[in-house]
């Protein structure tokens, strides 16, 4: 096989995953889009570009430190700890990109309801897909399943996408923001991506999809704002006493706890709490941890329907299921929680997407969906550019058609999640009861509920 490499086509050669590519001839050419990072969001962009006949003509490169994962967790085995909630908008993106079939149930779990309630107060809000006339509110899938489905799809699309790995970004040369003829400076020179291997790739657009600690963002000199919540999130895989079709979320004194259905009757716990509490919970046995989850979900007072609110518009509170330690699952793990945003998402010939541009609190499972929404917007912008003869790396295009709409959307989600998180910060007494009242009113108002639900489902 190796001896035959020079005779293989470009696609075959570059798609020989897992090893550095040495054929200089294949790399001399220019890529339209060079995606740094083949994670969920980077792979989704590559897949989505292949969806439209307009962007399908682009030459796309995905490069990553690691080979593109192609293997899903085998069904029957306990799910991975890291999962994502997929909104109907994200599901649509994957369907159109031809990657949904490998993520759809039984590989993921749909949920029909979402219930949010408070530990101290009486307030609760319950959403149902049926209220919005939809079959599901969303799906929960392991990150590994999403990644593998996208990887598999990319492998089928070697006609327009190349994958290079291991490839480590070392330098990034981008054109100036504005031309200066006297100084001989242009704003349209091609971007140059320098790799640790010494290889250089030229591209009309570089997309940073390399996560919260994006090296691309750093090399592009784009500043960020961030703050820590001084909290950690603990993730665990559990079993539930009865089938789970609801995304449960309870606000505890120390932070929110979410219980999401995964697949095969498993559920996933995402518990945000103080650093000290996280250390304690992480050290527990899975059985002890499950006990703590049950206390957190079932302790305190259970809300009752507010008799002041109209019956028709409010849904009754449902008690959460009891959870058990899942055999064969990895033990619970914790990770730090932070909020991060890049002041700008674009430069001439550069765009940041996903966590490289913004990191939110995992509260509503929105993090990766914001990234997938970035993908959708960027694909639309590039399709427009192809159609109207614009340079896909032109600053004005990236600003007006990608950065500006996404920054507005992401900022409002970041503010909403951060605000929601702050509202539910450890406190009791008056504020807690006001909070309860607020949830009650949301639950009682069908218009407001529908709005919030649509927003959470990415269809607002």
């Amino acid at each position, binding site marked *: 096989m190796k001896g035959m490499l020079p005779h293989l086509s470009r696609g075959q050669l570059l798609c020989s995953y897992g090893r550095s590519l040495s054929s200089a001839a294949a790399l001399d050419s220019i890529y339209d889009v060079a995606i740094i990072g083949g994670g969920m969001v980077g792979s989704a962009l590559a897949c989505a570009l292949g969806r439209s006949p307009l962007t399908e003509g682009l030459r796309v490169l995905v490069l990553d430190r690691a080979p593109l994962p192609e293997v899903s967790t085998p069904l029957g085995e306990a799910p991975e700890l890291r999962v994502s909630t997929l909104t109907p908008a994200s599901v649509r993106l994957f369907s159109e990109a031809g990657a949904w079939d490998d993520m759809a149930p039984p590989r993921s779990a749909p949920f029909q309801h979402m219930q949010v309630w408070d530990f101290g107060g009486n307030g609760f809000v319950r959403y149902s897909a049926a209220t919005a006339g939809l079959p599901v509110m969303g799906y929960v899938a392991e990150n590994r399943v999403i990644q593998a489905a996208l990887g598999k799809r990319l492998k089928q699309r070697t006609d327009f996408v190349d994958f290079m790995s291991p490839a480590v970004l070392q330098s990034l040369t981008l054109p100036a923001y504005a*031309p200066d003829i*006297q100084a001989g400076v242009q704003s349209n020179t091609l971007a140059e991506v320098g790799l640790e291997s010494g290889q250089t790739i030229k591209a009309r657009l570089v997309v940073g999809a390399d996560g919260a600690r994006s090296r691309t963002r750093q090399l592009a000199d784009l500043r960020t704002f961030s703050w820590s919540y001084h909290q950690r999130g603990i993730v665990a895989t559990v079993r539930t006493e009865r089938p789970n079709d609801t995304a449960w979320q309870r606000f505890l004194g120390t932070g929110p706890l979410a219980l999401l259905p995964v697949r095969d009757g498993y559920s996933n716990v995402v518990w945000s709490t103080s650093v000290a509490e996280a250390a304690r919970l992480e050290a527990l046995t899975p059985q002890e941890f499950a006990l703590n989850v049950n206390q957190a979900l079932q302790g305190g007072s259970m809300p009752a329907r507010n008799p002041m609110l109209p019956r028709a518009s409010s849904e009754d509170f449902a008690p959460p299921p009891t959870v058990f330690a899942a055999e064969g699952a990895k033990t619970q793990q914790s990770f730090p929680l932070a909020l991060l945003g890049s002041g700008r998402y674009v430069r001439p010939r550069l765009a940041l997407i996903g966590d490289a541009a913004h990191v939110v609190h995992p509260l509503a499972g929105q993090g990766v969906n914001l990234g997938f929404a970035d993908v959708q917007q960027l694909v639309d912008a590039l399709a427009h550019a192809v159609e109207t*003869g614009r340079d896909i790396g032109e600053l*004005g295009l990236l600003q007006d058609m990608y950065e500006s709409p996404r920054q507005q959307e992401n900022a409002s989600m970041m503010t909403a999640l951060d605000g929601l998180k702050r509202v539910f910060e450890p406190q009791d007494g008056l504020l807690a009861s006001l909070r309860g009242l607020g949830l009650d009113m949301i639950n009682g108002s069908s218009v407001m509920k529908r709005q919030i639900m649509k927003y959470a489902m990415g269809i607002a």
Partner: protein
Amino acid sequence: MSMGAALSSSRGVHTSRRTHDVPQPSAAGTSAAAAQGPAGQSMDAQEVAKFEAMASEWWDPDGPNGALHTMNPLRTQFARDAICLAHGREARTVQPLRDLSVLDVGCGGGLFSEALARLGADVTGVDTSATAISVAATHAQADPAVASRTHYQNATAEQLQQQGAHFDAVVASEVIEHVSNVPEFCASLVALTRPGGSIVVSTINRTNRSYAVAIVGAEQIMGLLPKGTHQWERFITPEELQEHIERAGAERIGDSGMVMNPFTGHWTFSADKAVNYIMSFRKPAEQQRNP
């Protein structure tokens, strides 16, 4: 900031009032100011100098040509659709103008030329400003895909016509208002088009509103353009443009107004042709070429 492309066009293409019996291939031996453009132009030295100074800022979207940058996608769409219609092609595809030759008369720094080249056309851009041509050629060099499909020449439409050149499509955007002999210029555009090919012209109408926007607003109040960039009397109404081109042997296919939202800088097509407008023509296939 700017009030429309009405104020941003600083194309330096001019036809001569003289006849073209003796076209000069180069500017050798002419005066210093005129030496910046090929012989055959009728623009005065001061005007040429103005355009030369602005030419260096062609590619700065925040510069004096900012409105041309924002208008570019719109006029490109219009030209794409018109050319595709004339050649029976599907417009909303990848490189719909592939293998078609297009002449961009008064190409300036190459904004329009590059967009048409990205749509697949093989573009020849001509301009009387040597600086603009140099800027355009240098800019195109950055991307081999653009460089290979753009060819810039410091020439006038009339000179190309003398050379017997023909193109599948000819575009002249924000140029005709600077031309001294409009009928002759229009005749050149049509003569340079192959039978069955298309012609796209965009310019500024001669109305009270265009006077207010282009002259009073842009030049006198806002100071966005040097005074005298535009001469309102030279602006051409859609009816006049149609008459000139039709007299030269092509028929009008369609037109549209182009309006810029002064707050967002975003351009849209509009029925309102009082200031900026764009018009397409088709040269009948059966028409005999000029010998």
